[in-house]
């Protein structure tokens, strides 16, 4: 024989259930906040080197100059799926430098020669200017100066290179020297939402 519930009882159960679920959620959030690691990161939409619309600006190198480590914990990272794999990459070649007899600029952007350029896929020997090239950043050399990031930005580039903090080397300082110096407030340690 089933027990019938009054309308008052049903509403009461529902209210208690809702309150319990809310309490559980709040407890979980507090636990997360208490135990989460707040890592430093770079907001690409704020960083002047990568922010769209900031054209004709000088490169900001504070990520490489301000870090307390001898070699900054910041690295340039090339997202290959967005890279055009161009013959003449404006983030690799200094496109304003003199052109050599092969039609390529004679100077490179990276002062530490940290970007490696290699032809990939089908190579047409009669058409070298339209072979595809991988641009791989050697993280043992990169110091996160951001010059390649600035040059990769639209409209000249496709914006595939950005700066990232390498957490295996970052000391996670409470008062990060880069964050203190960043003029765009792009070096941030956001709390979980």
């Amino acid at each position: 024989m089933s027990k019938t519930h009054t309308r008052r009882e049903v509403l009461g159960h529902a209210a208690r259930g809702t309150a319990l679920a809310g309490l559980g959620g709040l407890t979980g959030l507090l636990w997360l906040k208490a135990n989460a690691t707040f890592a430093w990161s770079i907001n690409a939409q704020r960083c002047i080197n990568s922010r769209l619309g900031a054209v004709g600006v000088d490169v900001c190198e504070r990520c490489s100059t301000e870090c307390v480590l001898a070699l900054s914990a910041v690295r340039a990272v090339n997202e290959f799926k967005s890279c055009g794999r161009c013959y003449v990459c404006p983030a690799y070649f200094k496109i304003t430098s003199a052109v050599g007899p092969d039609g390529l600029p004679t100077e490179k952007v990276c002062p530490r020669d940290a970007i490696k350029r290699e032809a990939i896929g089908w190579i047409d020997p009669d058409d070298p200017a339209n072979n595809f090239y991988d641009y791989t950043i050697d993280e043992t050399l990169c110091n996160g100066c951001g010059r390649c990031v600035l040059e990769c930005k639209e409209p000249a580039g496709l914006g595939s290179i950005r700066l990232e903090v390498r957490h295996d080397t970052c000391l996670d300082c409470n008062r990060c020297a880069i964050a203190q110096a960043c003029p765009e407030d792009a070096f941030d340690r956001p709390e979980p939402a």
Partner: protein
Amino acid sequence: MKVLRFYWYRSGSNVKYMGSQGQNGSVMFAKRVCLTLSLLWFAPGAVGTAADWPQFRGPNRDGISRETGLLRTWPAGGPKVLWSTPVGQGYAAAAIYDGKVYFNDYDEKTSEYLIRCLTLADGKELWRFSEKRRIRPNHSITRTVPATDGKHVFSLDPKAVLHALDAATGQEVWRKNLVQEYGSKIPPWYNGQCPLIEEDRVVIAPVGTKALVVALDKATGKEIWRTPNADGWILSHSSLMPATLGGVKQYMFSVLQGTVGVSAADGKRLWHFPFKFNLSVSPSPLAIDSERVYVTGPYDAGGAMFRVKKAGGGFTTEQVFVHAPEEWNSEVQTPILFENHMFAVGKKKRGLFTCVDLNGKQVWDSAGKASFELGSFILADGMFLILEGKTGMLRLLEANTTAYKELASAQILSGHDVWGPLALSNGKLVIRDLTKMVCLDLKAR
């Protein structure tokens, strides 16, 4: 073409003429002559009639259509779409002549380079030239506009082969491989040069080890003259632009080391304005008047106005002003000259359509209204038609030198990289994005 059509009417006695009721034959004859002459574009060097768009940047290669009677407002949803056809990825736009649309294309499934001919009225394909070619996308594949006089179609393909086709059938009449014949290097992102046709010749700039510029007989491909490439320059993406400077008809184009002018009569190099372009130069030189020329380019090149003067037996150049990269430039498209102002999509602030006076000062831009990225534009009937490069939005602006004034807009195409030039003929606008070519009816009823 102009001469031929006029001759047709003068030799009207050989043609059965049917005058309309109430008008005698001589009146109708005079009317038809006047109509024909008004349709024929009268500027020197023009190709085709005012209603044709036979080459890159139209009959006068200035990006300006002389058509009138176009819609100044558009219905909701935009102008009527007359037809649409799928195309391979690229920016190769249409040349239109006598009701036929010619354009370059590529079929990635079959690895075939194509030159296609459609009817302007309904987009029906009349013929297609195809050739097996392995061309992989490198920021798309096709990017040039053919040139046609109605008898031949000339197409310079991505790997720098010039094809001359019979315009009626699509059969190849002759070809020139610029790499093999002139020692050209295929530029990064493939060839971007659009052939130029003049009365009896097609003119191209191989910029190879064996030739800087060549003029070829339209019918046979036989060389008429060639300009040696004494400085060993290499091919970029600029197209030849005809101009009369210092009273001498010449062809201008840009290489990475600046802009050069050669005599139209014999190909003699007349002058060189040194200017440092970086990586590539896509916009073509813009003749302002009988002396001044404006050049601009991408990758922090900026721009420059210079003067070409005839001095003694030769020519000299002198800089008038320079646009620093942070001031203004055009990345891809050649500016349009209108009422002593230049109009183009500038790089600064990412793609603002900008009006610049002839002293290089900005008058207005589209800030806060629209951003066009690297989109293309033409001027017609006192209005600019501009495509947003990122979205494919087509915008109609009033052409004026005082302020940005938008008249209409329509989302006909879709982004990204909607950079192909526009072509207008008989009130029909042919535009494209990376996947389709569309014809719109812009004629006011």
